[in-house]
């Protein structure tokens, strides 16, 4: 029996960890978008939601550290799998094409590392903008004070650079997820052809829905100037 360290560094272990971290990050995306959609709720909903998160205190740090670990581990594995190709095939083909059929080679699967890296760079800017961005304090109906993140979100997304920059990067999720969702289950040794087909359909559905929900927020705020009927004051 190999040691745990040896096992997670084996070619099987690396793939399983890519799958597990990928699934973890997808679950995070679901949680993140559900929270974000509170911006369309009652005027205070979004600030109550963000305050609730901040009030978690030490627990929030644990969650953040866990997330950072997942992002980091996922990135290291993804980049190293991609990088190792050069070693495994130092001289490439003059001509190369997929044979189609059961192959999953597609724009999505071939661009995983590029979409991933763009998402990572975006993440840094994103955290800088919102987590560490300047906000006013507002008084909630409950009498407590909270950061007015809602105002910051609306301010940023009325700026075309932010609105369209976010829309562009978040659109890439459709590529990363339409292959990633299927690939993660395959890494975790999904075997049957029927399941594989269903999971690939599920992957398309998941990728489209997640992407649309994410890009809806910046686009809606930009085109309504933050005063549309869905944003109540």
């Amino acid at each position: 029996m190999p040691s745990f360290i040896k096992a997670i560094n084996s070619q099987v272990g690396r793939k399983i960890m890519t799958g597990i971290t990928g699934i973890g990050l997808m679950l995070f995306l679901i949680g993140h978008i559900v929270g974000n959609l509170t911006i369309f709720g009652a005027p205070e909903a979004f600030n109550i939601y963000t305050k609730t998160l901040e009030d978690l205190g030490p627990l929030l740090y644990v969650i953040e550290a866990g997330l950072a670990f997942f992002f980091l581990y996922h990135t290291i594995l993804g980049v190293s799998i991609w990088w190792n190709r050069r070693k495994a095939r130092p001289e490439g083909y003059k001509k190369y094409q997929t044979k189609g059929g059961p192959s999953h080679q597609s724009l999505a699967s071939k661009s995983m590392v590029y979409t991933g890296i763009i998402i990572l760079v975006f993440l840094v800017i994103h955290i800088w903008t919102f987590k560490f961005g300047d906000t006013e304090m507002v008084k909630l109906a409950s009498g407590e004070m909270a950061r007015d993140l809602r105002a910051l979100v609306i301010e940023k997304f009325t700026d075309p650079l932010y609105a369209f920059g976010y829309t562009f990067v978040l659109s890439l999720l459709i590529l990363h997820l339409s292959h990633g969702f299927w690939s993660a289950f395959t890494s975790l040794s999904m075997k049957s052809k029927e399941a594989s087909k269903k999971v690939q359909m599920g992957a398309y559905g998941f990728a489209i829905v997640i992407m649309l929900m994410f890009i809806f927020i910046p686009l809606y705020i930009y085109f309504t100037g933050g005063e549309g009927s869905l944003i109540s004051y």
Partner: protein
Amino acid sequence: MSKDMTIHLKYWKQSGPDVPGHFEEYTLDTVNEHMSFLEMLDVLNEELQLKGKEPVEFDYDCREGICGSCNLVINGQAHGPKAEVACCQLHMRNYKDGDKITIEPPRAAAFPIIKDLVVDRSAFDRIIEVGGYVSVKTGSAQEANALPVEKEKSDEAFEYAACIGCGACVAACPNASASLFTGAKLAHLNKFPQGEVERSNRAVAMVDQMKEEGFGDCSNFAECEAVCPKGISISAIAEMRRDYIKALVN
């Protein structure tokens, strides 16, 4: 009567393992649609020799799709354009007059080129050596029915056993991973009661040897399944992953 076709060939020439190679071109005017791809290369070599040129080396043995010796990458596809057909069984009727065909050897650090289109695939042998066998007592054969094998399992094992070790899966994989080959060998042996005993050690040893030989990681591109002349599914890779995980908890 079929008319002769003109085919423009471009093929890899490399005089030895550690020297740089290059492409050479030749136009054949007498290609018949009934020829196999390798017969077309025979004609090429005949013409080259008549002109006093060196022939192109390529690997083959059975020419009937069962030995796994042939392994050309034709126009960027391992074994050429047809699904589940080894290039020795590929016929020139799949091409038309005036076609350009580029022929390259399988490219992978673990498959060093010996000459031209011939590569050294002993990395596969070494993966087999570390676990791709069952240990049985020699001597007089055991009664054949002493070890019952479930029908479903033996059918499944048979599908994986169809692997001919050609290396097309490695050739076509963007990462040059050997997962389909190794998975097929593991899945084949692990389905039988005779193979069950060494199951865990076998999975760990063979998976580790892939890395040792310099094959790349699997990215689930599934291109291997598309090019495999025996149609072996990536379910073999799932079997390999399951066996490896089981080995951890055993």
